[in-house]
């Protein structure tokens, strides 16, 4: 099963990963705020991630690590 790990140090909550995800399983986490003051991205449907790395490829802050 694939998933992503978001590095809060780098994520700026731009949401480009959310739009890039072909499965629509990412969202910005309204519950959390990064040290820089952003809502970071998170995987909301862990079963839906296919590990395609579209989010990683689109992320301007290289904040995402994809594992499988």
């Amino acid at each position, binding site marked *: 099963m694939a998933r992503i790990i978001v590095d809060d140090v780098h994520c700026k909550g731009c949401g*480009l990963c959310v739009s890039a995800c072909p499965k629509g399983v990412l969202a910005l986490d309204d519950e959390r705020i990064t040290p820089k003051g952003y809502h970071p991205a998170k995987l909301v449907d862990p079963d839906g991630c296919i590990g395609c790395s579209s989010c990683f490829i689109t992320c*301007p*802050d290289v904040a995402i*690590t994809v594992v*499988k």
Partner: protein
Amino acid sequence: MAQPTATITLPDYQQERIGSQIAEGEVIKSARPHALTDVVTNYCPGCTHGIVNRLVAECIDELGIEGRTVGIAPVGCSVMMYDFLNCDMIEAAHGRAPAVATGVKRVHPDNVVFAYQGDGDLASIGTAETVHAATRGEKITVIFINNAIYGMTGGQMAPTSLPNQVTQTSPYGRDVSKVGYPVRIAELLSTLDGVAYVERVTCDSRAHIIQAKKAIKKAFQNQIDGIGYSLVEVVATCPTNWGMTPQNAFQWLRDNMLPYYPLGVYKDVVADGFANAAEAALERAKDCPIAQQKRED
């Protein structure tokens, strides 16, 4: 060409922060390239500079050239790129990156030297340096970010701003009858004999970003192989100064930028069947006797 390393590993600074969250048996599919430092960029959320910075870093990793790469940072939003990459870096004066790159490359021809420049830097204040480094056939790699605006200074009209585009210094829209037309750098440079390779790419989607990386890697590989000057123009966004969300900025790019700045390869001497830019230039001047003279030195 060096292949991507089989095993993707985290850079040291993420071992604890991210590595501790990876379970045993899990394999890393994608991670920050090692050529990137842990410095958080100064780019705005959703800025495509970050994507292209990563592509450059990935190419450096995959080609195994970090130890012999010298990058030239411009003036503009990517001015602090010297903090984001682990290779040796020089910060240049506005527009002068190709001249600085020339100096470095002439001293250390075996180094891989690249300049990373925005549209104001490359196509306005540094046009002379750009055109002449290209026509000299400097064996350097240039990454050109064209987002049709001056980002760092707050959204002024750029040499590549589109007709009727509203910016801080074209508040009624770029009036081409008064300030003229945008510069198409890829097309312009493709006419020069010193140029080996020019491609225009963009970064609005997974497929386009993958293509952009291929182009950037080729531009580096060309330098390693001594083929000649290579430039990749990346049509990019500036959500902040365009006044849009990053997502809407991509749509505006597709609607307005790409029709004006068509993607594609504008020059590729290798694809044209030449060993390098010099051979292609010789063929082009085949009817000029003096240009065909063999040199002794």
